[in-house]
């Protein structure tokens, strides 16, 4: 942890991408090739650093900043690799960007951020946000997020996104100036909609259900996998004890000594090999987690559909009731019970002038209502169309990515088995010399 100096910087990351990360990058760019932003620039989150400073309430805090690097692609075709532009961003700024995108493009499945706090950890150590492994995985996740946005046909063109990548100062203010927060639907409204929508598009209802299932099953998988990883770690590490005892035992043996000693080394190697294995397992878990969080974004789109549908229906209901009022006033008949009707019966009818005024008002309102319904209808249709396109795109991406994740899991298992075969063959060789 950094100490009390106000601008202590400790570099805890490095600029080199590990092979798995490069692969990740390449994968992501391949997935949405031919989309706009990534054609023009290279994006990466190259480093992570710890900073300390005073926060809003003037208290000392330690936080991590991430280096966002961008490099124009067309320059490289000339054979020179220009120095990348870069700026530092905190996790909270990434969050702000994401929220902005969520509100501004409610009909799109917005890519998720890596988790804020480490969950589903198998190893108690990595539950700490300041833990270097956690920070490193978060760095990769943030890069992934940017690449996903940059490769999305619609999102990649967003100006706020572009300035996030290119303008360090004043970006936050720019975001707030868009007034996006005002557009955010209140939770209550959204909740209301879920319970009262009459004619939701069935496809969206199915999709929402799917999102629920996906979230539940991935959570379960992550939990179980974490426990299994913990156990496997234990099994491998206990073998290290063989190494220690063989070594001690070999000291009292004449003929068996050499064989025991060398076998012991292989047992140590076996115990040590689990660290690499589990690191790769974490990578698999991260891929699952991304889709766990995607499920949220996915469900958000479905909820937004319900909301727009709800508002359309509300507008429609409102219009219908106004038309009914008009009819009642015009014909003097009371079809439906209304307090107004009753009171006017009890306390006498209105004057013809009052009625005339009312009718006029209603006419205006009805006109406005019809306009509103038309608007909302169009909104709804537009939403359904755009959302459905993006959902289809998302489905394809998900199928592709998760299949790739399963494949890399298999590759990891294969590598683990091969290492096991090697170690135990070597050990057997040593044992035979006992």
């Amino acid at each position, binding site marked *: 942890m950094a100490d009390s100096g106000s601008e202590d910087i400790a570099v805890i990351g490095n600029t080199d991408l590990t092979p798995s990360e490069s692969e990740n990058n390449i994968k992501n760019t391949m997935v949405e090739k031919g989309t706009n932003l990534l054609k023009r620039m290279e994006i990466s989150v190259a480093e992570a650093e710890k900073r300390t400073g005073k926060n809003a309430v003037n208290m000392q805090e330690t936080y991590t900043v991430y280096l966002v690097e961008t490099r124009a692609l067309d320059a490289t075709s000339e054979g020179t690799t220009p120095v990348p532009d870069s700026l530092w961003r905190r996790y909270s700024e990434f969050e702000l960007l994401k929220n902005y995108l969520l509100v501004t493009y409610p009909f799109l499945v917005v890519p998720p951020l890596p988790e804020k706090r480490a969950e589903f950890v198998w190893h108690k150590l990595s539950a700490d946000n300041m833990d270097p492994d956690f920070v490193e995985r978060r760095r990769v996740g943030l890069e992934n997020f940017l690449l996903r946005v940059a490769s999305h046909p619609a999102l990649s063109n967003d100006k706020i996104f572009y300035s996030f990548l290119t303008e360090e100062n004043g970006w936050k203010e720019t975001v707030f100036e868009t007034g996006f927060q005002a557009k955010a639907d209140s939770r209550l409204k959204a909740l209301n909609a879920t319970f009262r929508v009459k004619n939701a598009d069935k496809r969206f209802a199915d999709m929402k259900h*799917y999102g629920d*299932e*996906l979230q539940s*099953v*991935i959570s*379960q*998988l992550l939990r*179980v*996998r974490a*426990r*299994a990883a*913990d*156990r*496997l770690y*234990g*099994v491998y590490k*206990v*073998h290290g*004890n*063989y190494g220690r*005892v063989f070594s*001690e*035992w070999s000291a*009292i043996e004449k*003929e*068996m000594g050499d*064989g025991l000693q060398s*076998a012991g080394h292989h047992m140590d190697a076996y115990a040590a090999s689990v660290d690499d294995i589990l690191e790769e397992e974490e990578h698999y878990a991260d891929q699952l987690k991304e889709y766990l969080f995607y499920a949220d974004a996915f469900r958000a789109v479905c909820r937004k559909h319900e909301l727009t549908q709800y508002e359309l229906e509300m507008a429609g209901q409102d219009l219908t009731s106004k038309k009914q009022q008009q009819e009642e006033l015009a014909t003097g008949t009371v079809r439906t019970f209304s307090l107004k009707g009753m009171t006017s019966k009890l306390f006498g009818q209105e004057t013809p002038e009052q009625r005339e005024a009312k009718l006029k008002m209603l006419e205006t309102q009805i006109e406005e209502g019809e306009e509103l319904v038309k608007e909302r209808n169009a909104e709804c249709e537009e939403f359904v169309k755009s959302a459905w396109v993006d959902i289809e795109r998302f489905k394809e991406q*998900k*199928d592709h990515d*998760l*299949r790739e994740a*399963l*494949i890399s*899991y*298999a*590759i990891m*298992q*294969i590598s683990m*088995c*091969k290492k*096991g*075969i090697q170690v*135990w*063959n070597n*050990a*057997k060789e040593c*044992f*035979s010399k*006992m």
Partner: protein
Amino acid sequence: MSGTIVDNNASSLSIPTDIAGHMLDLDDDDDLEVFSKDTREGSSFNASMQTSPGSMINQYKFEEEEEDIDTKDIFVTVDDPESYVTAIETFITYRVVTKTTRSEFDSSEFEVRRRYQDFLWLKARLEEAHPTLIVHPLPEKFVMKGMVERFNEDFIETRRRALNRFLNRIADHPIFSSTEDFKIFLTADVGALTSHKKQGPGFLSRMGESVRGLAATVRGVRNRPEEFTAMQEYVEAFGQHISSLDKVTQRIVREQKEYLEDLKECVPTYTLWSNSEEELAEPLRGMASCLERCYKETEEQVKELNDNLNPTLHEYVLCTETLKTVLRRRDIIQAEFEAKTEALLAKHADREAIREDLYKMEDRLEWANNALKSDWTRWKKVMRTDLRSAFMDTAEKNVNYYEKCLAVWETFLLSQRTDAEGTQVLDSS
């Protein structure tokens, strides 16, 4: 305490206290032959060595080379556990099959049924007759850890294997395998065995031995030869290491079993997931099936550890106790001899009688020391073979385990890569 000489005519029922009597049974020619094979140097008792039981042991070749399978002339197996129910008790009997070409056996094949108690009896007899020879341990009466029930299948199988190993060790031992007790154990019917058992050493003689033993222990050994001290140190250290290995192995088994539990839960989760997917359904089902197969392989691997490495290590933990006991007995014999030597110096001692006893005890000590030394070498050889093959087998099994799992995942990978459109089949490095 004395022991029986390897003389098939000698009755093992009576325990002579005087070894010298048995020496008269041997041919002088044989003794001379034996004497020339005696390569021990610096022995000040060479003269009496030619007729001492110690040199008899040499006749049976405790060699450095591995015993040739071809020279093995007796084969025993313990199998077929069965419940035997009487009005009073229920117990398990095992079938003991013997195939032999030895002339002292009336026939070449025998089949008897024996219970655990019978094995205990045999072990006790051999220990009594040869206090400084190393008898392979028997499996314990009850397994405390894990609270295994006596009639549980796994327990019975584990015990059967251990009994089989025990009996085979006895059969492989040049001296033990030639004892009358062993022969009776292998061949007598239940009735004959029971009556033979009843003719065991008298209670009093056993009492007398333990009292003498106690006195000697209290007195302690004064001049223990260096090699026996070295043995004791080795046994202490070996005991610690083997004990550690036993514990480590048990821990591995425990952790593996818990891992299995967790692995098991993964399978239905993938299956559940595949139910909500379309394109992904097939690969997810594939994952579930891979994990299921790996689960089964892991189960087998744990079983192997449990059934082979674990019991072998445990037996050698028990061996350590046996070795300590044998060393202690040898110490007692030496202590008694030293006590007698001191008695000779007492003022009013009956020098004649004491000297007579002293010679006998000296021989006894020499004989015990040589027996122990030879058997020690033999034991070390057997230990080395046992542990080497136990560890090799474990390593082999682990290799097989990983090979099988490798095949499972490679098949899965192949199926995924040929299905996916547009992806190249890369080298699985």
